[in-house]
């Protein structure tokens, strides 16, 4: 695995001289900021509602983790859905158009070093995105009399509650794992074609299918399917990213969900390796 660093480092350097990386970073920062404000807005409206109907006991229980941070992290999946395929689309496709696969495949590299190197580069980029968006909820942890908390709670007769740090970190961990899974899927899509645009839409389609599997499973159950279909729907629900991610985003760390993401990443990297190797067996 000693060539992984060389492959990943080169990939990242190329990414950061291309406009794609900066377009993605800018778009991501803007969207994260927008969704964060939206979450706060939603929080204020909820509080307003309970204050007006006079349910002060509910109002006391409302907290920033569940009403602001979790919804914010949950909505970011859709941003990842579109941006991560943009990062991964060139990973293998551009090697084919450059003809550089002929260099890589005749160098003393193993296929695993190549695939993992590509994935590590995409994963590093995802990590940068997570660090960037983590800054927004981190604002809530600033001292209680900073403008932001003051603004959120302005107009309410409430003690400003402190958010829970660990719960937020668990949510970010969930989004990070989701991003890594998306990076693995995108890496696979890029290995299937020499056209970056095709790689982008292929990744998007795969990710949507992966997300919607649980919806499909629910439909099957709703139609009153029989025993076999019930077990099929269990499998589909398990395979779908949505439930696993939702739990983590709400701060519930369950090793079964962590295992799910590890499994998905591993599975798509194995698929990528097979696909890259098959180029040789045309």
């Amino acid at each position, binding site marked *: 695995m000693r060539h992984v660093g060389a492959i990943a480092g*080169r990939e990242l*350097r190329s990414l950061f001289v291309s406009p794609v990386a900066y377009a993605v970073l800018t778009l991501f920062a803007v969207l994260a900021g927008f969704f964060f404000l939206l979450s706060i807005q939603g929080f204020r409206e909820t509080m307003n509602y309970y204050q007006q109907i006079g349910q002060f006991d509910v109002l006391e229980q409302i907290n920033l983790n569940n009403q602001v941070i979790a919804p914010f992290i949950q909505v970011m999946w859709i941003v990842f859905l579109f941006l991560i395929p943009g990062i991964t689309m060139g990973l293998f496709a551009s090697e084919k158009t450059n*003809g550089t696969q*002929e260099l*890589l495949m*005749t*160098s*003393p*590299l193993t296929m695993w070093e190549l695939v993992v190197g590509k994935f590590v580069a995409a994963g590093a980029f995802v990590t940068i995105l997570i660090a960037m968006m983590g800054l927004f909820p981190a604002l809530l942890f600033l001292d209680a009399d900073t403008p932001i908390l003051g603004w959120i709670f302005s107009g309410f007769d409430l003690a400003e509650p402190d958010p829970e740090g660990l719960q937020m970190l668990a949510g970010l961990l969930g989004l990070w794992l989701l991003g890594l899974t998306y990076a693995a899927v995108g890496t696979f899509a890029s290995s299937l074609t020499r056209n970056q645009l095709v790689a982008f839409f292929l990744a998007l389609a795969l990710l949507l299918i992966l997300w919607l599997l649980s919806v499909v499973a629910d439909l099957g159950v709703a139609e009153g399917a029989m025993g076999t279909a019930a077990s099929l729907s269990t499998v589909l629900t398990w395979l779908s990213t949505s439930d696993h991610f939702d739990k983590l985003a709400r701060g519930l760390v369950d090793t079964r969900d962590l295992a799910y993401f590890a499994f998905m990443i591993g599975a798509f990297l194995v698929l990528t390796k097979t696909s890259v190797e098959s180029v*040789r067996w045309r």
Partner: protein
Amino acid sequence: MIEAEGITKRYGDFLAVDDVSFTAQAGEVIGFLGPNGAGKTTTMRILTGFLPATDGSARIAGHDIFNEPLAARRAIGYLPENPPLYPEMDVAGYLEFVTRIKDVPRARRRSAVESAIERCGLKDVHRRVIGSLSKGFRQRVGIAQAIVHDPRVLILDEPTVGLDPIQIREIRSLIAALADPGKSEARTIVLSTHILAEVEAICPRVILINQGRKVVDSSLAELTAEGQSLEDVFARVALRAGEAA
């Protein structure tokens, strides 16, 4: 250095390379000739391990390319038909990357890059982005990439395409110098080309393939002994094939 045995490649029903065998010793420079579509590139891709052969085997510096691919590849420098370049990288950064994936020890990387830049006449452009270079300079970077790790076997697919006359002369003398047994370690070089004068200038041995089959394998001196030029030999082989088809 190179031992190729019965190399055969099929694309579906089409036989691109048909039972090609040859061996090459250290210090040999072999001109690999043949009309368009003869199977030169395909054979070279098999020798470098980029494509699997349908049949046959090959050893590079004593390592079987299928069973010990990493050791075999470490001994090879390869210039593909289209130089494998990253347009967004600068020349020196690109060559540094190549030394890393070719297992050049860390301490020697910098001097390896500098020497390749020097020998391929890239001094003036080594900080330029590859995508902004002219075709000839990109070809030179391709050659630099093939020699940067000082491989014992060089496989060059049309190395002088797109170069200016002075650079062609320099690359030819570079190739001669790499093969020169007077040096500490002689290299083995296989190069394909359509320029017969190039073969006459630097390749003491000629292998001619046609429609995937090896039809000539002899020294240049023998081939041209009876007063015929290399062009006559080439034309005769190619035309005979044309009649047969």
